C-alpha cells in the first residue's frame, strides 16, 4: 500500500512535467527533449538554494526561471539558427549535463529537509500541499491557454502561415512556448527532488518518456469524454501522470527486478500508444 501512496505523490510531482510535455508536444507540436536536462536543472537549483537556507517562495520562481532559460535557448537554436528542434533539444540537454554538475558541485546532494513546499501552507501534510499546488498549476495553465496569448500559442502548432499573416512573430512565440514548457519541467524536477530528498545528476535521464507517457495515458483515458474543453484535457493529462506512476508501482510490486524499471516504463508507454492508435482512424 505504501508503494502506491508514494506512487501517487510521485504522480503529483510529475504532473507539471506532464503539463510541460503537453505544451511542447501537443500545443506547439514540437518534439522538444531539452526535458532531461531542464528536469535535473530544477532539482539542482533546488538543492543548492535549499543548502543556502533560501525560503521556498524564492526557490520555486528561481527554478521556473532557470527552466525557462533552458527552454528559450533550445527555442533560439531552433528558430534563429534553424536547427531541427530535436537536435536543438539534444544540444541543450547535453550542455545542461555539465551545467547541472557545475551548479551542484558534485553528482548527488541529499536534502536534510523533506517537502519544504509544505512550509508554504504552515502544514506538514504533503497531500494537502501537493493537491493545492497541482490544482493551482492546472488553473493557471488553463487560464493562460485560454488567453489571447494562449489562443495564438495553440494555433502555432498547426498553422504558422496564418499566424504570420496575422502579425504574429512566430519565432518569438515558439521561444516563449518552449520556455513555459521547460519551466514546468524544471518545477517537476524540484518536486521530485523534494520527494526523494536528494538531487542527482542522472535523475533526468529518460524523463521525457515519463512526461510523454502521462500525456498519452491521460488522453486515452479521457478520450471517451470527446470534449474539446481545454480544462478537461489538462485534468486528463494530470490524471495521466497519476495513473502512469500507479501502473509502474503495480508492475514493480510483482517482484520485478528494479533494474528493469526503464524497460518497463518504455514498454508501458509503447503499449498505451499502440492501444490508443488502434482506436483512432488511420488518418489523423
Amino acid at each position, binding site marked *: 500500500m505504501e508503494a502506491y501512496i508514494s506512487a501517487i505523490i510521485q504522480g503529483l510531482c510529475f504532473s507539471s512535467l506532464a503539463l510541460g510535455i503537453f505544451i511542447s508536444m501537443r500545443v506547439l507540436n514540437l518534439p522538444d527533449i531539452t526535458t532531461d536536462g531542464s528536469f535535473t536543472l530544477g532539482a539542482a537549483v533546488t538543492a543548492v538554494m535549499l543548502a543556502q537556507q533560501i525560503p521556498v517562495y524564492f526557490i520555486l520562481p528561481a527554478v521556473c526561471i532557470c527552466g525557462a532559460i533552458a527552454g528559450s535557448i533550445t527555442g533560439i537554436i531552433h528558430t534563429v539558427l534553424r536547427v531541427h528542434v530535436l537536435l536543438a533539444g539534444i544540444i541543450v540537454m547535453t550542455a545542461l549535463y555539465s551545467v547541472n554538475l557545475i551548479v551542484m558541485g558534485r553528482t548527488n546532494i541529499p536534502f536534510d529537509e523533506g517537502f519544504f513546499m509544505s512550509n508554504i501552507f504552515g502544514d506538514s501534510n504533503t497531500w494537502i500541499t501537493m493537491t493545492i499546488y497541482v490544482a493551482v498549476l492546472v488553473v493557471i495553465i488553463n487560464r493562460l491557454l485560454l488567453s*489571447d496569448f494562449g489562443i495564438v500559442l495553440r*494555433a502555432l502548432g498547426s498553422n504558422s502561415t496564418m499566424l504570420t499573416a496575422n*502579425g504574429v512573430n512566430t519565432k518569438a512565440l515558439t521561444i516563449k512556448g518552449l520556455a513555459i514548457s521547460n519551466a514546468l519541467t524544471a518545477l517537476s524536477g524540484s518536486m521530485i527532488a523534494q520527494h526523494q530528498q536528494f538531487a542527482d545528476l542522472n535523475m533526468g535521464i529518460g524523463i521525457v518518456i515519463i512526461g510523454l507517457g502521462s500525456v498519452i495515458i491521460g488522453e486515452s483515458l479521457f478520450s471517451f469524454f470527446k470534449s474539446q474543453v481545454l480544462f478537461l484535457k489538462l485534468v486528463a493529462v494530470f490524471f495521466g501522470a497519476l495513473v502512469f506512476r500507479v501502473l509502474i508501482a503495480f508492475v514493480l510490486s510483482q517482484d520485478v527486478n528494479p533494474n528493469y524499471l526503464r524497460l518497463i516504463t518504455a514498454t508501458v508507454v509503447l503499449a498505451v500508444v499502440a492501444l490508443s492508435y488502434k482506436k483512432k482512424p488511420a488518418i489523423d
Partner: protein
Amino acid sequence: MINIENISVTYNAGTANEVKALQQLSLQVLPKSFVVLLGSNGSGKSTFFNALSGTAQIDSGKIFIDNQPIHEWNAYKRSVLFTRVFQNPLQGTVTGLSVIENFRIAALRTHSSKNIFAGVSTAFRKKVQEVISESGLPLANRLDTLMGNLSGGQRQALTLLMATMADCKVIMMDEPTAALDPRSAELVINTTQKIFQNSPVTIFYITHNMKEAVSLGNRLLIFKEGRIAIDASDTEKQKWDLQRLHGWFDEG
C-alpha cells in the same frame, strides 16, 4: 498608394531547379483600386502576393506603401497593412481552434496595445456573431465548432469575414472561390464587393475564372512568366470582354 519597383523573386537560385518566378516587376496602384490578376498556372501570381506580404524573399527591388519602404519589414510586421485570403482554404484558418478563436487571432492583428491575457469576451462573441449573421452565412450559432469540422468552402468564407475584423490597407485574395460551390462563391464575391464599397481598401484578386475577371474590379493585370503582360484600367479594362480574354490566352 502602392509603388513596386523592379522586384524579382528566384526560387532555388543557383541550382538546376532555379525558377525565376518574378522578373523585374514594377507596378503602381492607386488607393482604393480593385485589381484583378489573371495568368496561367505558374505565371507568378501567388509569388507576387508572397513577395508583397514578405513570405517570399525578393532578390532585388523595392516596395513602398504610402512611401513606407515595407520591403525592409518582417513578414509579421507587414500584416498591419495586408490581409490575405489564401488559395488553399486550409491555410487561412487553424483547424484545431474554434471559429471564435480563429476570429480572435484575426482581430488581434492590428491591436497596438496588446493585453495578451485578455481572451474571448462576451462582447467579442456578440460582435463576431453579428459579422457572421450580416454576411448571410448560416454559421452564427456555431462559434464554438472546431474550424476543422467545417467544409473548405465555409472556412474560406469565414476567412474573408475574419479579414474584416481589423482594418487594413490591402486585401490579397488568391483564388478565393476556386474551392467553393456556386452559392458560397457568390457569397464570397458579394462580401468582397461590400468590403470594397464600405472601406478605403485596395483589393488584389487572383482568379482563373474569366467571368469574374470581366465583372470584377477596375483594373486588370495579366501575368506571364513572372512579368505583367497586360495592364488595363477602367475603360481600358472594360474592353477586355470574355471573347478577347479567351483569345489572348488561346494565343498563349
